[in-house]
C-alpha cells in the first residue's frame, strides 16, 4: 500500500489536505494530512466518498454523442471532429462571439486557465462575468476593509465572542467547529444568527432568527445600541474608521423597536447581542455566503462589518471579519472580486458580456451576437443557476451544446456532445483556498480510467485541429503528458521561490507572506486608507448609498401571492450538485425533504412525511414534508443540490437577477407557496 499527498479541489471552505492510500492501484481510505493546521484533524464524508466516486459505474468514460435523443459512444476522433466542425460553422455563420464559454467552480486549479487560453487562440468567445457564489460579500468587504483576507482558521479559538452569521459551519466548514468548540470550552460565548436552528447552533449560547433578507437591519439595530450605550472604541474609530459620524446618524432611526418589527427578532435578543458585542472582546463574526444572495446584501454585509469596526474588533487576534481569506490567491493577476468584473474596455477577443445571474435570459434574448453554442465545464447550470426551467429552454434553443463532466448531470443530459472528465486523482494541479492560506498540490495518483482525458488534453488536441501550432501553445496549454503538466505548474511557481513542486508533493505550504492576524498593521487598501463605513466608491460603482443603508429586499413584495420565503441551504452531504449520486452519501439523504415549521404545516393541513409541492410562477418542486421546529415560521427549506433526475431541483423556483453590488446573483430571494400532494 502506498500513501500519497493530495488536496481536495472542491469549492469548499475547508479545502483539505489529504493522505490518500493506494491499495493495489485503487484509491482507498483518505485521511487528513497533518501539515494543514486548519484541516489536519480529519476529512469529511464527501472526501471519503471519492473512493466510490472514482470507480462509480455511472462515470462517463468515453465521449458520448446524442443522436435521436439518446447518447451513443463515439471515438475521440469523431468527437473532436464534431466539435471542430461546429466551431467552424459558428465562426462562419455568426462569428466567435456566438460561442458561450461557461466555466464554473466545480473544481479548483490553476490549470483551469487553459480553457480561456484555448478560446483566445481560436478566435475568441463570449463568457460570463460576475459569480453565483460570493462576489457581493467580497465586494462589500473590499469596499469596507480594502482586501479580502481574514485571520487564520485556528485564530477563532482566541475569540471571546463568536458570531456565526448566516453560516452553518458544522455542515459547510466542519473543521471550523473544532476551533469554536475549543473557544467555548475556555468560556467563550457563541451566537448563531440563522432562520434555522442549524447543526452549528446545537451548542450555541443563543440563536437569533431574523427574517431572511433582513440581517442588515439587525446589524444597524445592534449598532444603534452599541453607540447609545457607548460600547464603541472611540480611539480605534478616530484612527481607523472613515465615516463614523454619518453612520451614527444613520443608525439613530434603527431603535430595537423598529428593528424588531423589520426582522421579527424579539427586542430582548437585540439588547442581549448588543450587550455581548459591547462588553466582550475580542469578537469574531464568521459570515456565510447564502446571506449575500439577496438584492440588498452588499449593504447588509457592509453593515455587519461596521459592527466590528466601531468596536475595534479588526486587526487583532480573536477578532475580525471571517468571510473570505484570499491570502493564498497568489497566482491571480487580479484578485477576486475584481476578477469577476467585466473589463472596463473589452480587450482581446474574449467578450465578458454575459451576466452570470442571467445566463438563460441572455442566451434566449441576445441578438448581437446571438448565442448559438455553449461549452460547459466544471459546472451544472441547469440545476445550479437561477431559473432552471428558463435555463432548459435556453439550452434547447442552442445549435450546439458541449458538456464536460464525470457523470450525466442534468446539464450533461441537455448536451449534444458529452466529454468525460478527470477526477481529482487523475491530473496534477495546484490549488489555493479561501479559508486557510495554504498552497496545495492536488497530485496525480492514478491514470484516468477508460478513455478519460483531462481538459487540458482536450484543448490541446482541439487546438491542433484548429491549426494552432506548438509555439503558440507554449505556456498556454501543456502538451498531453504528465511531464508537460508538471513543467506548466513549475513555470507558474517560478515567481515563488519558497514553493516547489517537490515540497508540495510532501504537503501543503503556507502562501508567501500570509499571516495569522489580518490587518494587524491597520493598513486598509481603501481610497481613504481607513475602514470605510462610508464609501464613495460604493456610489460610483454600484449606485447604492455611501452608508450601509438597509433597504427592504425586493422579494417581500411577492408575499401576497406566495407567502413563504424559500431557503436552499447546503448540507454536509454535497458540494452544490456534486456527491449526491454516490451511495456512500445518499444513504444519509435519499429523497427530497421539504422542511416546514409545524405551525405553518398545520395551518396548511400538511402532515409529516406527506407528499407536498412547493411552487411559484417559475416552477415547482415536489418532496416529502418534514417538520422542523427550529425553522422560522414563514420559511420553507429544501437543501441545495438535488438533481432533476432525483425528483427536482431548488432552482426551478429561483429567479435570475443581480445583487446590489459585485455582480452576484440574488437568487435566494424566492417566495413560494406550498400545497399537499405530489
Amino acid at each position: 500500500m502506498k500513501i500519497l499527498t493530495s488536496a481536495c479541489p472542491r469549492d469548499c471552505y475547508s479545502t483539505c489536505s489529504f493522505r490518500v492510500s493506494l491499495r493495489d492501484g485503487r484509491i482507498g481510505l483518505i485521511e487528513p494530512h497533518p501539515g494543514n493546521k486548519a484541516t489536519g484533524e480529519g476529512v469529511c464524508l464527501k472526501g471519503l466518498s471519492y473512493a466510490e466516486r472514482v470507480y462509480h459505474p455511472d462515470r462517463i468514460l468515453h465521449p458520448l454523442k446524442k443522436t435521436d435523443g439518446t447518447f451513443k459512444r463515439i471515438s475521440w476522433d469523431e468527437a473532436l471532429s464534431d466539435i471542430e466542425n461546429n466551431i467552424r460553422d459558428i465562426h462562419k455563420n455568426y462569428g466567435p462571439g456566438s460561442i458561450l464559454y461557461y466555466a464554473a467552480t466545480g473544481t479548483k486549479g490553476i490549470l483551469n486557465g487553459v480553457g480561456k487560453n484555448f478560446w483566445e487562440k481560436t478566435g475568441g468567445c463570449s463568457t460570463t462575468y460576475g459569480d453565483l457564489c460570493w462576489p457581493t460579500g467580497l465586494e462589500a468587504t473590499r469596499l469596507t476593509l480594502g482586501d479580502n483576507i481574514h485571520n487564520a482558521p485556528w485564530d477563532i479559538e482566541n475569540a471571546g465572542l463568536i458570531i456565526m452569521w448566516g453560516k452553518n459551519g458544522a455542515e459547510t466548514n466542519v473543521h471550523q467547529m473544532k476551533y469554536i468548540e475549543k473557544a467555548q470550552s475556555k468560556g467563550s460565548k457563541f451566537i448563531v444568527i440563522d432562520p434555522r436552528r442549524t447543526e452549528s447552533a446545537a451548542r450555541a449560547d443563543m440563536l437569533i432568527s431574523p427574517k431572511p433578507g433582513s440581517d442588515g437591519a439587525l446589524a444597524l439595530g445592534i449598532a444603534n445600541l452599541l453607540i447609545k450605550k457607548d460600547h464603541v472604541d472611540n480611539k480605534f474609530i478616530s484612527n481607523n474608521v472613515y465615516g463614523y459620524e454619518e453612520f451614527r446618524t444613520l443608525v439613530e432611526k434603527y431603535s430595537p423597536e423598529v428593528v424588531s418589527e423589520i426582522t421579527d427578532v424579539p427586542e430582548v435578543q437585540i439588547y442581549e447581542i448588543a450587550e455581548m458585542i459591547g462588553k466582550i472582546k475580542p469578537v469574531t463574526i464568521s459570515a456565510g455566503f447564502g446571506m449575500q444572495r439577496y438584492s440588498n446584501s452588499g449593504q447588509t454585509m457592509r453593515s455587519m462589518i461596521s459592527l466590528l469596526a466601531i468596536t475595534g474588533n479588526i486587526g487583532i487576534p480573536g477578532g475580525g471579519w471571517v468571510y473570505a481569506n484570499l491570502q493564498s490567491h497568489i497566482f491571480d493577476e487580479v484578485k477576486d472580486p475584481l476578477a469577476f468584473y467585466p473589463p472596463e474596455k473589452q480587450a482581446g477577443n474574449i467578450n465578458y458580456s454575459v451576466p452570470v445571474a442571467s445566463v438563460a435570459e441572455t442566451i434566449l434574448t441576445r441578438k448581437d451576437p446571438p448565442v448559438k453554442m455553449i461549452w460547459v465545464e466544471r459546472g451544472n447550470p441547469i440545476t445550479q443557476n437561477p431559473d432552471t426551467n428558463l435555463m432548459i429552454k435556453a439550452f434547447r434553443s442552442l445549435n450546439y451544446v458541449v458538456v464536460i463532466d464525470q457523470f450525466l448531470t442534468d446539464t450533461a443530459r441537455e448536451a449534444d456532445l458529452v466529454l468525460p472528465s478527470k477526477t481529482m486523482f487523475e491530473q496534477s494541479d495546484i490549488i489555493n483556498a479561501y479559508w486557510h492560506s495554504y498552497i496545495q498540490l492536488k497530485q496525480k495518483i492514478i491514470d484516468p480510467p477508460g478513455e478519460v482525458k483531462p481538459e487540458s488534453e482536450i484543448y490541446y488536441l482541439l487546438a491542433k485541429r484548429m491549426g494552432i501550432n506548438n509555439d503558440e501553445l507554449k505556456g498556454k496549454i501543456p502538451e498531453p503528458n504528465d511531464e508537460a503538466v508538471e513543467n506548466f505548474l513549475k513555470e507558474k511557481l517560478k515567481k515563488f521561490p519558497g514553493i516547489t513542486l517537490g515540497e508540495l508533493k510532501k504537503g501543503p505550504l503556507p502562501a508567501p507572506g500570509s499571516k495569522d492576524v489580518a490587518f494587524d498593521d491597520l493598513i486598509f487598501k481603501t481610497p481613504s486608507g481607513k475602514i470605510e463605513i462610508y464609501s464613495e466608491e460604493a456610489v460610483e460603482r454600484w449606485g447604492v448609498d455611501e452608508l450601509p443603508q438597509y433597504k427592504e429586499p425586493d422579494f417581500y413584495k411577492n408575499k401576497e401571492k406566495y407567502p413563504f420565503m424559500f431557503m436552499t441551504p447546503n448540507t454536509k452531504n454535497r458540494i452544490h450538485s456534486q456527491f449526491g449520486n454516490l451511495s456512500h452519501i445518499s444513504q444519509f439523504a435519499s429523497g427530497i425533504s421539504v422542511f416546514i415549521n409545524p405551525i405553518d404545516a398545520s395551518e396548511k393541513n400538511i402532515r409529516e412525511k406527506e407528499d407536498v409541492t412547493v411552487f411559484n410562477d417559475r416552477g415547482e418542486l415536489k418532496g416529502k414534508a418534514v417538520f422542523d421546529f427550529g425553522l422560522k415560521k414563514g420559511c420553507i427549506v429544501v437543501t441545495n443540490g438535488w438533481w432533476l433526475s432525483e425528483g427536482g431541483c431548488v432552482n426551478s423556483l429561483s429567479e435570475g437577477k443581480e445583487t446590489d453590488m459585485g455582480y452576484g446573483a440574488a437568487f435566494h430571494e424566492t417566495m413560494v407557496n406550498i400545497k399537499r400532494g405530489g
Partner: protein
Amino acid sequence: MAKGFKIDLNKCVGCHACVVACSIENGLEPGESWRSVHTYNRGEVSDIPHFHLSLSCNHCSDAPCIKQCPAKAISRNSDTGIIEIDELKCVGCKFCTWVCPYDAPKYKEQAGVMGKCTMCSHRVSEDLEPACVSVCPTGALEFEEIEDQVINPDIPGFPQRGLSPALKIKDVDPSRLYPEQYVNPYPDELLKLYGSSVDDTSSKISLKKEWVLLVFTLMFTILGGLLSSAVFKGVQLEPLLFGIAGIGGMALSSVHLGKKFRSFRSIFNLGSSWLSREIFFYSVFIGSSLLYLFFPDMKAAGYSAVFFSLISAYSIDMLYHSTASENPELFHSSQITLSLLFLIFYLNNFIFGFTFIAVLKVTLYIKRHIRREARPLKYLFLPFLRILFLALPVVLIFIPSPWFPVLSMVFFTLGEIIDRSEFYIELDIITPEKDMEKKFQIALKKK
C-alpha cells in the same frame, strides 16, 4: 488496560465521516457500516438538546454476543481485548443482533455472515488509529485507554444493561445544552401529534419476519404433547409423520441462516448459548422420540423424549429471555414451557395439572394486557378469543364426544397463535435508536 473509543458529545456535529470511513476501510457496503450515528431531537424542538451519538461495538467486558453465539464464532482476543467475529465460523443466524443492546453486529447481506467493529485491529497493530477516529474532523471521536468508568445512565441512545462497555462518553456540557431562542409557542396538540409520528424506528423482531419461528415453536409444543400421550397413554403415533414434522421444523428454522451448510456449527456453544442448547436438546428430543416410536419397547427412550422436550422448551424460553429485549421477563403467558406442560397434562388427563396451568396462563395473560396502555375496546376482541380458546378445551374435556378432543386441540392451537403473536409483536430488542426515541418522548411530554 485495553483501549477503546471516547466520544465527546460537545464536539460531534453529526458529519457521518466516521460511518463512511468505516465502510471504506473495511470494504463494507453503504448502509452496512459497523459504525452508526444516532441523532437526538432531529426535529429541533426548542429547549431540548440536539446531539449525535456515534456508536460501534463497545467490546463489552461482559459481552452477551460471545456468550450467546451458537457457533462459537465470536471471541475476545486475549491480547487486545477486541471482540472478533470469525467469518469462517459464523452461520449467519443473526442471533447476536438480538442480544446486543448497542446494535453493533451487522449482517453482511452478500457474504451471509455477521461483521462488526474490529477497532481496525489491522491498523492499530501498525500504530495507526482506527479509521473512524483518524478521519473525525472535529476530534469528537478518540481512541484511548479506558479505565473503569461510569456512563451517565440518562444519556439518550446508550441503553445500559450492565455489560461493562469499554467506552467513554463525554456528556453535553450542562451550560451548552441548547441555544436560548425565541420561538412561536407550539400548541400541545402539535407536539402530541409529532410525538406519535416520530416513533417509527423499525423493530428487529417482528411477527412478519419471525412467523417461521412461531410455526416452529408451536409445532414443537404439539409434538411434545403428543409424544407424552404416546409414552404415558399408549396413543398410537405415526413415526414417519412425526419424523417429517420434527425434522422439517428444524429445517424450516434454519432457512434464514446466511450459511446453511455450516448449520451444524450451531450446537458448538452448549456451554453458554441458549440457542445452541435449544437446537441440541430439540434434536435429542426428536431423536429419542423417533427411537421410541419405532421401538415402543424402549421405554427409556420415551421418558428421555419427554424429559428433553421439557428441557428444550425451557431452552427456547431462555433464548428469548437472553435477548436485549425491552421486557426481559422470563415468566409470561406464552412461555413454551407452560404451553408444553399444559398440553402434556391435558393429553394425559391430569386435571389438576392442566387446570392449574390454564389459570396461571390466563392470569399472566391478563397481567400483560393490563400493563399495556389503554386501547379502544375493539382491541379486546383478540384477548377475549385467546382466553376463550384456552377455557374451551378445559371445559370440553368433561363432555364425552369423539369430535371434542380434536376441536380442543384446534382451539388450543389458535389461542397459542394469538398469544405467541402478541409476544413476538411486543418482544422489542432495545437499540440506541429506540432508547433515544423513548427518552425523547419523555422529554417531549415534559414540555
